């Protein structure tokens, strides 16, 4: 009888890159065809609009945030630790930043207030992640489920604050805090929604994370932990500490991104789902599209950011269908990446049994 089996294989780096690149381009083309069929817009108009979105500098606003979070996640995922709680870690980060800017005198001191706010944001993100990894290592809880639950607990913490004790005086009853003092604003580039400090931090972090993962003892231990925690232990490095480090790095960077979102984009605390806005989940996709290579994270972040901007372009009559199509795009892009990377890892063989 004939049987189909999968056999593991290793592809060359170049072949792999070509394969993944063409899968990314192909999924955009497939999505355009689907949108064209569903919306009766001509495909060439859509193609033009997609190109326009990628050329739009507003992509940099999403690019910065997604790069920062995505970089952190590559660290955790390299250790095969499933932090899917970036969304919640981002939200608690934003809460921390608000606390500094709005409720301490530091909020009125330029630069220092922002720096302290960002440190607190990272710290809160870190603690939110620390809880999850300790529960996994000490009690054996599944970190996917714990981080998922913590996301919603973070959402509702922010909701509690903006509907309750932190609700602003000048907000006409809207569930949000007052604006933070102008001294704590990270200025956006005039006419655009991105800000240089955030962009610069993201680019510095790319190099930093790459160096740490490639050249330091910790980075190598983290990558080794991903393939075999026991081997890490046998080489004299604490596997417990390695796992905790990998996880909290990812959580702290998500918290930092939350701080940046607050100082540069929102400038006030809003309900949880509005701060998170799914960026934490989309960053998971960014991390995996990069193949967990820190140097490729900017590329995959850019790929996704273009789609995020495309959302606003796509409007039919008075109905904005952009969100729906962007979500569909992102889903299809990740699905085709998953299928392609499987085909790269496994050879399909027909055998006689």
């Amino acid at each position, binding site marked *: 009888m004939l049987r189909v089996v*999968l056999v593991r294989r290793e592809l060359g780096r170049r072949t792999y890159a070509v394969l993944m690149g063409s899968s990314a381009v192909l999924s955009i083309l497939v999505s355009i065809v689907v949108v064209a069929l569903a919306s009766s817009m001509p495909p060439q108009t859509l193609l033009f609009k997609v190109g326009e979105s990628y050329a739009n500098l507003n992509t940099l606003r999403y690019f910065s945030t997604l790069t920062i979070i995505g970089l952190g996640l590559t660290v955790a995922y390299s250790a095969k630790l499933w932090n899917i709680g970036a969304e919640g870690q981002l939200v608690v980060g934003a809460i921390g930043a608000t606390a500094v800017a709005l409720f301490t005198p530091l909020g009125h001191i330029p630069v220092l207030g922002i720096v302290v706010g960002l440190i607190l944001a990272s710290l809160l993100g870190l603690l939110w992640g620390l809880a999850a990894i300790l529960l996994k290592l000490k*009690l054996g809880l599944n970190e996917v489920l*714990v981080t998922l639950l913590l996301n919603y607990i973070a959402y509702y913490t922010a909701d509690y604050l903006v509907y309750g004790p932190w609700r602003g005086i000048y907000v006409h009853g809207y569930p949000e805090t007052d604006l933070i003092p102008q001294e704590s604003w990270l200025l956006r580039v005039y006419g655009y929604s991105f800000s240089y400090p955030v962009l610069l931090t993201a680019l510095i972090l790319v190099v930093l994370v790459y160096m740490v993962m490639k050249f330091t003892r910790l980075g190598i231990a983290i990558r080794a932990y991903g393939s075999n925690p026991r081997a890490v232990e046998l080489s004299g490095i604490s596997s417990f500490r390695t796992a905790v480090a990998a996880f909290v790095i990812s959580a702290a960077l998500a918290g930092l991104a939350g701080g940046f979102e607050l100082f540069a984009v929102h400038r006030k605390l809003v309900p949880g789902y509005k701060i998170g806005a799914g960026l934490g989940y989309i960053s998971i996709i960014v991390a995996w599209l990069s193949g967990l290579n820190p140097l490729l994270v900017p590329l995959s972040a850019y790929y996704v950011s273009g789609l995020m901007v495309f959302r606003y372009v796509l409007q039919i009559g008075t*109905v904005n269908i952009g969100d729906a199509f962007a979500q569909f795009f992102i889903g*299809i892009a990740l*699905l085709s990446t998953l299928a392609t990377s499987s085909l790269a890892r496994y050879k399909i063989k027909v055998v006689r049994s």
Partner: protein
Amino acid sequence: MEPITQMLDNVFSPLTLAMVLMVLGDIVVEHSGVLNIGIDGVVALSVALSFALSLTTNDPVLVFALVVLAAIAVALVVSLIVNVFVASHVLTGLAVGFACYGLGSIAALPHLGRSAGVHPTLHWYWVLGVSVVLALAVWYMLYYTKLGIAIRASGNNPYAAEALGIHVWRIRTLALVAGYSLIALGGAIYELGYIGIWSQGLGVGRGWLALSLAIASMWHPLAALGITAVYSYVETSMWALQLAAGIPAAVINAMPFLTALGIVVAVHATPVKKRVSPPRALGAEYFREERTA
């Protein structure tokens, strides 16, 4: 008689039935070892689709049938990627989830602003009866039938299950199809029996809620019935609670997630873990050709 019926209608509202269906569906899927991250997308899709279909066809049976068919299609995609391509359950779930959010909105957006065309009236006895019978059926199926034992074996140790002659991928596909059908029915009842209108993003987060209720009941169908019924009652009387006791909505919303976290931690920190534990291979990638290695 009138006030009593009204009270019972409040306690066993269509929301209860919808949530019970979603939670039971999730339990069936996860007992087979497939980590059900796609649940939120499936719920959002079935909510949007049932709304759109109720306005294009007026036949309730057809609406429910088509929504279930769509969910089965999604289940087959998940099964293909998880079982055949041996990809990560989390990523597959996320990707499918995103695609489903998008597809659902695309289907429902043209009808934005209208109210659903089908309104099944679900009296308390229907809600109570169907919920109890379904929970008992799922419980009996999982623990007392050959199929259920095969499902749980695939979820606890797929390698051992395969060695005993169980086709793990077949069992997991079956569990996905059955589970997603239940989840989709839940989504449709949530929309048509409880909400009645649609706006973008409706139903997003409902799936995670069902997942957290399944965790809180430690994946046991009968515990799930109790916990879900209590939670749904609290949710429907949220505004009353807020007025009467001054409990903020955010606290009530966070409750299922906090409870789920508390219960999993408590179970894992105490010897109870030996008796009730989550499916041990939940979310583990299973590569069949390595089963002897």
